[in-house]
């Protein structure tokens, strides 16, 4: 027996003639029906987006709406990527995301390593300080940061978006530290006997073992950076530097929105995330389970 069966009232009392096997079968069918209905509900928005993205402007405003466009306009995708400099924005987004991933992975693993594997004066106090900052909304520092970057003359460059990533992030650092704690201490001792420095220990022993945790960091940072809107909105003004999130806004004019093109561009901008999701699905799920259950 599993917990889920409990949520469905067993029909046993009302229909005593059913065998246990029949009952289980019925239950399973019911569960499948509910789940399938859920899946349909979850996918309706995406299917509708795809449908809209392939419609002619006239059909977008047709009532009753059509699911399969009368005339499938593949050209919408071409127009969507030419109406705005899509590939330039894609490149900017890729660049910012890639550097952010590198920055976060380096800084987070180093700090987590120091917290988990090294002994130093004030370590535990610092760890508590870091835990406290997890509660802090990142946006509280938005304003002083903006002013600082303004002084540095970094407005309208990628620097305000990528430099802070080299200072880590408390939440993921905490997760990686938890992961590193689980690696047996004997390894450290053995390495030190072999003459490994702290950095050698980090680079040659711990990092290779921490690959699953690093992958989780990569996935989280990728997803977060790819979708980030507020920071580019504040810091990037030259359209040549825009990210996809900002570029999508260009489809909304003063008096009009081309919904078919906008939906096409939106889908294209989500595609990398969807691809990454399918490629690294197992790690994605591991990651979120790790954060939720083990943390």
């Amino acid at each position, binding site marked *: *027996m*599993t*917990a*889920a*069966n*409990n*949520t*469905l*009232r067993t029909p046993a009392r009302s229909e005593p003639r059913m065998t246990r096997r029949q009952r289980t079968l019925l*239950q399973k069918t019911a*569960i*499948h029906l509910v*789940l399938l209905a*859920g*899946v349909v509900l*979850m996918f309706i*928005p*995406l299917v*509708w*987006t795809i449908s809209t993205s392939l419609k002619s402007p006239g059909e*977008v*405003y047709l*009532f*009753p*709406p059509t699911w399969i466009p009368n005339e499938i306009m593949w050209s919408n995708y071409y127009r969507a990527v030419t109406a705005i400099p899509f590939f330039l924005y894609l490149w900017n987004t890729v660049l910012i995301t890639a550097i952010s991933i590198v920055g976060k992975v380096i800084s987070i693993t180093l700090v987590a390593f120091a917290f988990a594997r090294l002994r130093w004066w004030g370590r535990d106090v610092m760890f508590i300080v870091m835990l406290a900052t997890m*509660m802090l*909304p990142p*946006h*509280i*520092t*938005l*304003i*002083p940061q*903006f*002013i*600082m970057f303004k002084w540095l003359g970094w407005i309208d460059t990628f620097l305000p978006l990528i430099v802070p990533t080299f200072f880590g992030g408390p939440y993921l650092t905490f997760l990686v530290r938890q992961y590193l704690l689980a690696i047996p201490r004997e390894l450290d001792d053995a390495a030190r006997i072999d003459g490994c420095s702290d950095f050698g220990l980090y680079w040659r022993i711990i990092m290779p073992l921490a690959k699953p945790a690093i992958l989780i960091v990569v996935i989280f940072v990728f*997803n977060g950076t790819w*979708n980030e*809107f*507020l920071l580019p909105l504040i810091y990037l003004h030259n359209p040549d530097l825009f990210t*996809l*999130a*900002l570029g*999508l*806004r260009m489809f909304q004019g003063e008096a009009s929105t081309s919904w078919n093109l*906008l*939906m096409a561009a*939106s*889908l294209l*901008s*989500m595609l990398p*995330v969807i691809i990454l*999701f*399918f490629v690294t699905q197992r790690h*994605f*799920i591991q990651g*979120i389970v790790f954060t*939720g*259950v083990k*943390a």
Partner: protein
Amino acid sequence: MLASLVMAFTNWDLITDPTYVGAQNFVTMFNDNLVWKSLQVTTTYALVSVPLQIALGLGLALLLNANIRMLRFYRTAFYLPSVLSGVAVALLWRWLFSTEFGLFNAMLANIGIRGPSWLGDPQWALPSLVLMSLWGVGAGTIIYLAGLQGIPTDLYEAAEVDGASSWVRFWNITLPMMTPVLFFTLVTGFIAALQVFTQAFIMTSGGPNNATLFYLLYIYRNAFEYFRMGYASALAWVLFVYILVLTLIVQRSSRYWVYYEGDDRKG
């Protein structure tokens, strides 16, 4: 952080020099009805959307845990939408909610209901955003599913021997064993809900009639539209204190409802 605290006591538009105004910003805030409005909007959203997400996520997880086939398919299908976020998703939902041409109202029209002006009606705008938040329910489901699979089966076997009904088993075994995980998602869910920005900015601009004026949007406006940097910093600090207090309350209450099995599950 400290800079932000200092700034909270100034009046600064970035163009002219800052001036020290003492606690003036906090007094202004107290009399600013939009501060209260945005706190109310944000809190209502958190109090409605987070429990709904948890209940729905847990329900789905229970169904998925029923030793069924196609588990991987379902898991992927439910999880995928929660991976998507940001501007594209906000725009997508904005289009779904369109009054005359959106999908929802078209479907309602099929069954003879004249759907509301989802994002145009002050009464419906916030519920619309709550509805949208349920699209991301899959993330919670995955966590709960892992939690459920971690519950020792011998507990259920023992209960079955005692003749406990399925409801009793859920109430007395499943739920208590899941409380640490629920606690975690409750806290992180609240913190995330209190920091909603993109949806409000893209979909409704805080309207209609400030019905979706989320707190962070109001901070943003003060900082980057009205350029009241000092005031915005003060607002940010109030949000911090608010989150802290809320978390402490949940933390305190957790003593009464979070069950820690042995020693190995320190939340």
